[in-house]
């Protein structure tokens, strides 16, 4: 148990007071450029009507678990610590479980902070609105957020383990080296979006922030229990397959 916890602690960065304290200026510039490009692209696509704001928010929220678990696992190769990690005297399922728990904690942290920011913004808007305009009911908004959060968390084990599987697969000896890994990130993000959509978690058509009607996602024809069971059973399969690949087909 102590081992699992130490591994989780090491895999997730929430417990690191300082994360990436030193970043070279070149990396920062790169990062900035990439962000600007992405934002520009999104604004452009939205303005032309290809995508809606609701769709973008949905994509971001749904991709968070996948991207987090992808980078947590991929980091071992990327930072060159893979040799130590794979030679640890623990089963591959324990090692991957630690990555799973770490990813889940980080996902929880990101979702909660995003929703908290939304609520705080609503509160601020409310307090600046003149009294004759309709106010958002904060309690309603909170309930809606909590409901969205539950659905997102329900589906996240699947997305997390899809990330795990795609990294292990991309790093297996079935595929050639490096560029594949980054290609697989994009591929995985899209697969993840499609599957989540198939689960019935659709982008909200009107992410309006007025009148407490704000939903980030709209749930279509799914119920809580079946989605939970489905998500967990598919996750279990993905986990088993990742462990198998890591055991038998990953060499460093």
């Amino acid at each position, binding site marked *: 148990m*102590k*081992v699992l916890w*130490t*591994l989780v602690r*090491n895999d997730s*960065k929430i417990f*690191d007071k*300082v*994360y*990436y*304290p*030193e970043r070279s200026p070149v990396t920062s510039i790169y990062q900035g450029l990439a962000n600007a490009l992405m934002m520009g692209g999104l604004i452009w696509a939205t303005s032309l009507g290809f995508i809606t704001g609701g769709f973008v928010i949905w994509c971001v929220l749904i991709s968070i678990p996948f991207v987090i678990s992808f980078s947590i696992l991929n980091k071992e190769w990327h*930072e*060159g*610590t*893979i*040799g*130590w990690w*794979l*030679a*640890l*005297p*623990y*089963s*591959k399922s324990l090692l991957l479980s630690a990555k799973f728990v770490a990813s889940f904690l980080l996902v929880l942290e990101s979702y909660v902070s995003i929703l908290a920011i939304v609520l705080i913004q609503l509160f601020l808007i409310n307090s600046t609105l003149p009294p004759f305009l309709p106010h958002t009911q904060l309690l309603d908004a909170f309930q809606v957020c909590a409901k969205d959060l539950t659905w997102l968390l329900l589906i996240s084990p699947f997305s997390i383990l899809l990330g795990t599987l795609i990294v292990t697969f991309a790093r297996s*000896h079935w595929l050639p080296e490096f560029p594949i890994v980054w290609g697989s990130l994009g591929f995985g993000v899209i697969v993840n979006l499609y599957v989540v959509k198939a689960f019935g978690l659709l982008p909200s058509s009107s992410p309006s922030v007025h009148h407490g009607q704000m939903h980030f996602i709209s749930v279509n024809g799914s119920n809580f229990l079946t989605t939970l069971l489905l998500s967990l059973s598919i996750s279990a399969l993905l986990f088993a397959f990742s462990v198998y690949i890591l055991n*038998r087909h990953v*060499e*460093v």
Partner: protein
Amino acid sequence: MSNALEIKYLSKSYGPKIALDDLYVSFPEGQITGLLGPNGAGKSTLLKVIVGLVKPQAGNILVFGQPPHWKFNAEIAYLPDRAKWYKVHTIERAINYALTILPGFDLPRALEMIKTMDLDLDSRVSALSKGQQASLYVILCLARKVKLVLLDEPFTGIDLLSRERIIQSLIDSMLDQPQTIIISTHEIHETESLFDHVVFLNRGQLVLEGNVEALRQEKGCIESIYRGLFR
């Protein structure tokens, strides 16, 4: 004398590239063995097979009588080639991590080694020089009560002083606990006086092996034997 490692007809290739070619060799227990050979000789692959990072296509290998398995890695301290440690760790954090994660980790010994290697517990791994990083890795491997220590190129690209400090801690380690140590290295001149035994590999095959003192008696210094073999 019994053997720590028994390797029989071991073969491994990566696509068309042959790393180990029907390798048949053994490593004596309780001794320090130098694993020598040019780049691509199969040294790293052999060490990886021992800890189960690489699966051979043919042949078998016994580590203290057992085929490699992650469970037995509890008794093996392995320094991977071109290893890096988690950048965000401070040395203190790395030591704490090792204490729970690596079985047999000897905290007092690690702290003593940190002192002799002149490392600072608060410095971050990403801020360490190459020599300091290498020293940390060697501490993580040598400050453990394990039966087998595998160091893959621990001296590559590091400064003379760090190299000497590492050699000192190797000597201390040998005195403090009987262990089987295998070091793959190119720096034969600095290290050959440490070895009890040497194994020369080339293209995945055994070229020469033997007790170092006997080889010195017979053929002179290990470095010149190496030159003679691989020129």
